[in-house]
């Protein structure tokens, strides 16, 4: 299992390298200016979700196989890299595309989204489905060994599967990073002071911009104002998370001991905890920073939105492709 966890960290590094290289090639200020002038920035996540979940779209992927944990990890790895790569390519093409290119751009964006979606929330073989299978198996194990002294089983199950308690959860990382930023620098970012601010904040300004703000300085500053207001709470929150992580470790140990004490093997239970943790990490870190809710998603949405302008809203994704070809 350690090998797989390492490979996720490698995945995160690869994605970061990919996007850093893109920043270097395109110029950070050019990327920021593109995003700042982008009319879709505010609501694209919701619109993106609505678009892919309505019209009974037929997705061009195969989901008629029995999903496994390892299979999902492998596919997720490939898909994440391709999705970011496609976004960087689309970014370059969008700047110079004409209407005749649009059907091609659309095809590229749709295929990229299809690959991402196969591992996503509503897929029969995706991350959430796999997570549900693991949690349900965990539930069965707990049910067989639970004793009243352990407390409320459902509440404890929540503790065991909570994302914030996972490695590098973005739900914990986002406020933590803003708290650090406020301590180190606490200045509003502009295009002209970004370089010096980034140095002062040990690279946090760029990191937050890239991972949580879709490269929007406006969004960064807005979040900064909000976090300033709750700064006192951020410290308390970090302590609370640390306590909960400790509680999870103790609880895991207690249940494993209980399983062994009644003659069972705790191996599968411990493996399940680790696998759920790992999926939480993909869901709450990789997916948040590099998927459709972040900058790569905004770029994909730019293509979809352009296409919707020509085809109207009431048609399916595949129908849109056909209409475009005939324009």
């Amino acid at each position, binding site marked *: 299992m350690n090998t797989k966890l390492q490979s996720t960290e490698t995945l995160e590094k690869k994605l970061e390298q990919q996007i850093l290289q893109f920043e270097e090639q395109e110029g950070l200020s050019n990327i920021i200016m593109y995003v700042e002038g982008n009319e879709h920035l*505010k*609501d694209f*996540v*919701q619109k993106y979700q609505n678009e892919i979940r309505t019209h009974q779209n037929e997705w061009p992927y195969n989901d008629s196989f029995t999903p496994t944990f390892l299979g999902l990890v492998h596919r997720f790895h490939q898909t994440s890299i391709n999705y970011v790569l496609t976004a960087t390519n689309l970014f370059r093409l969008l700047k110079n595309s004409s209407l005749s290119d649009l059907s091609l751009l659309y095809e590229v964006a749709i295929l990229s989204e299809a690959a991402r979606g196969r591992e996503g929330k509503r897929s029969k073989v995706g991350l*959430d489905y796999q*997570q549900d299978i693991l949690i349900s198996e965990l539930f069965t194990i707990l049910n067989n060994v639970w004793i009243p002294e352990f407390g409320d089983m459902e509440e404890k199950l*929540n503790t065991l*599967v*909570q*994302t*914030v308690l996972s490695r590098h959860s*973005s*739900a914990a990382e*986002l*406020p933590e990073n*803003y708290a650090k930023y406020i301590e180190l620098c606490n200045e509003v970012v502009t295009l002209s002071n970004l370089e010096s601010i980034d140095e002062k904040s040990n690279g946090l300004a760029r990191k937050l911009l890239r991972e*949580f703000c879709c490269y929007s300085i406006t969004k960064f500053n*807005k*979040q900064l104002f*909000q*976090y300033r*207001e*709750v700064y006192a*709470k*951020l410290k308390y*929150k970090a302590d*609370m*998370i640390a306590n*909960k992580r400790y509680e999870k470790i103790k609880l895991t140990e207690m249940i494993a001991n209980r399983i062994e004490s009644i003659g069972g093997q705790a191996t599968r239970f411990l493996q399940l905890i680790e696998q759920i943790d790992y999926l939480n990490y993909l869901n709450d870190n990789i997916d*948040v920073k590099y998927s459709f*809710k972040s900058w790569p998603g905004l770029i994909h949405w730019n293509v979809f939105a352009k296409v919707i302008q020509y085809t109207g809203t009431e048609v399916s994704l595949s129908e849109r492709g056909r209409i475009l070809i005939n324009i």
Partner: protein
Amino acid sequence: MQTKTNLTGRVASIGNGIAKGIARIINNESDLDKIQPQDIMVAPQTDINYVPALELCIGLITEQGGRFCHAAIYSRENNLPCITGVEDARNKIPDGAEIILDTNSNTISLVD
């Protein structure tokens, strides 16, 4: 005085049990600017982009979502009272109204 509504859903997080505050209807991310400290957010659903605004809130009501949706997970992790799956909440709760979100009894009440 409280007026009980027929609003109910699934208690995703008990938090402190009861939250009393101003209901802010958030239809999408653009509305997040409306959130003030001590508000109760009423939204169709939430995602990572809602987190900074949620840090200001004392309660959360969503129309969609189950046990493992973002709103439920965030609330449990942050001890925030939260009811998810409240049908048509954005139409039934007036924007700016003072409300009581009671996760012990799974009720949402308007304060007269």
